[in-house]
């Protein structure tokens, strides 16, 4: 599948990436190559393989409903670029 300019713009928007106009051709080509590479998986015969949603042979990994200590608030906020009164502070929220 060829990644068009529109698809690139959409994917970049969903990933919150700003892509400069002069870079678009390069990213389109790179992404097209990635997809082509992944498409080689289609060559594997899977008719007799049941579909799976999880890569490892594991299931039912649970924990008991027991309270464990949370972080100190100071520690929780340590890496926050902005904070106020024990809150994480975020800039104006804009809807799409």
């Amino acid at each position, binding site marked *: 599948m060829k990644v068009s300019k529109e698809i690139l713009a*959409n994917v970049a928007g*969903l990933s*919150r990436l700003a892509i400069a106009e002069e870079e678009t051709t390069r990213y389109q080509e790179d992404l097209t190559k990635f997809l082509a590479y992944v498409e080689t998986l289609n060559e594997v015969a899977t008719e007799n393989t049941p579909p799976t*949603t*999880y*890569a*490892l042979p*594991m*299931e*039912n*990994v*649970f*924990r*008991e*409903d*027991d*309270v*464990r*200590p*949370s*972080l100190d*608030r100071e520690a*929780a*906020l340590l890496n926050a670029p*902005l904070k*106020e*009164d*024990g*809150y*994480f*502070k*975020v*800039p*104006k*929220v804009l*809807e*799409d």
Partner: protein
Amino acid sequence: MKYEAVIGLEIHCELKTKTKIFCGCATEFGAAQNTHVCPVCLGMPGVLPTINRRVVEFGIKAGLATNCAINQYSKFDRKNYYYPDLPKNWQTSQYDLPIAEHGWVDIEVEGEKKRIRLTRIHMEEDAGKLVHSGTTIKDSTSSNVDYNRTGVPLLEIVSEPDMRSAAEARAYMEKIKAIMEYIDVSSCRMEEGNLRADINVSLRPVGSEELGTRTEMKNINSFKSLEEAINYEIERQTEVLEDGGHIIQETRTFDPVRGVTLSMRSKENAHDYRYMPEPDLPPIVTAPETIEKYRRELPELPDARRERLEKECGLSAYDAGVITASRAMAEYFDKVTATGAEAKLAANWIMSDLAKNLNAEGITIEKSPVGAERLGQMILLIMKNTISGKIAKTVFQEMWTNPASPEQIVNDKGLVQITDTGAIEKIVDEVIANNPKAVADFQGGNKKAIGALVGQVMKASKGKANPQMVNKLIAEKLG
């Protein structure tokens, strides 16, 4: 053209686990901001979430209690979107293999039964809370985020668009609330946001099978708002269509103060959530024996309990419906009748005087100063003719602030019913002597005039005379 409303609900129900869905942080409501957080629920890189076993149990029980099929193979998925109430930039939810699907509950509106289908029930994590610097999100220059609620387990219960009126939607939500309370998976305190609904409303010409364009109202957290928002939206959409306009698919907010819905954002470019299987959480595989074990653990559900109260206690369908709508009230009722109090009297007292006092003080039945046992004892006093139903109202009010036993109160306040024929006869004689007109009316054939005389006797005895005896004595004396 005549339109009919098509309504569907997505109910979010916060589960009453001690800890969050993927970490050991406490879920307790009302803690200081950002004190119930850890690297997992803050979405720090490199952490490994682990599923809380109770959440799965609660999800399966909720599914069974609403007649769903349980998916023996279920998994979590990432729902990607950017909003600061989600520190990871995705919500861990369930997409194509939810824990439960294809259920139903029955509702009753104005005596008509109706079955509402459930599409699915899935498990997910709640988001954090934003406190905006301005009055609304639009005029705020910044927002403060509290992540205590992030990761609190939720069930999202999705209905088919099977409801046709606000009353049906309310009955459905009440039924879901009752079921979740009965199976004890949620406290369902709507004022704390434990239970909230997103409502979808569209209109279509009566007789049409096609669905019209719908609007959505999010986070409705009271039954009153639910009904008002739906009724307003039905009216608004009707006007738009009758004027030849088109409904825009959008999210609207409901303003409970003005009772109107307002456009929030248009959904023309629908969100692209890019669901993907959650690679950090192995699938949940539930054996049929485990599902059956949970089924056996389910308590008596609201419909069954209602039927029992109708059949075994002789309550009317209406009374049984009101009593069983909340688990706490149904249990209170059972405790009252366990004292030997008659079921119909118990229902009447719970639904009238008790409910009135609880409402006036804004407290729940669990916190009632008059416990089930004491109310039962008071009803026994009525049944034994120690007090009349009328005096009982005085006794009940006294019990509200006085923790003494009803018997003690009746004795201390001298409220024991007069059943001594001689004492009543004395009052009756006085009343007959002082009310010649009522006496003449009665003897002249107006049998209703006896009411006035009985009233006078009751008044003279300060309500303590036994009304049946008073009636009988007057009738005898004038007969």
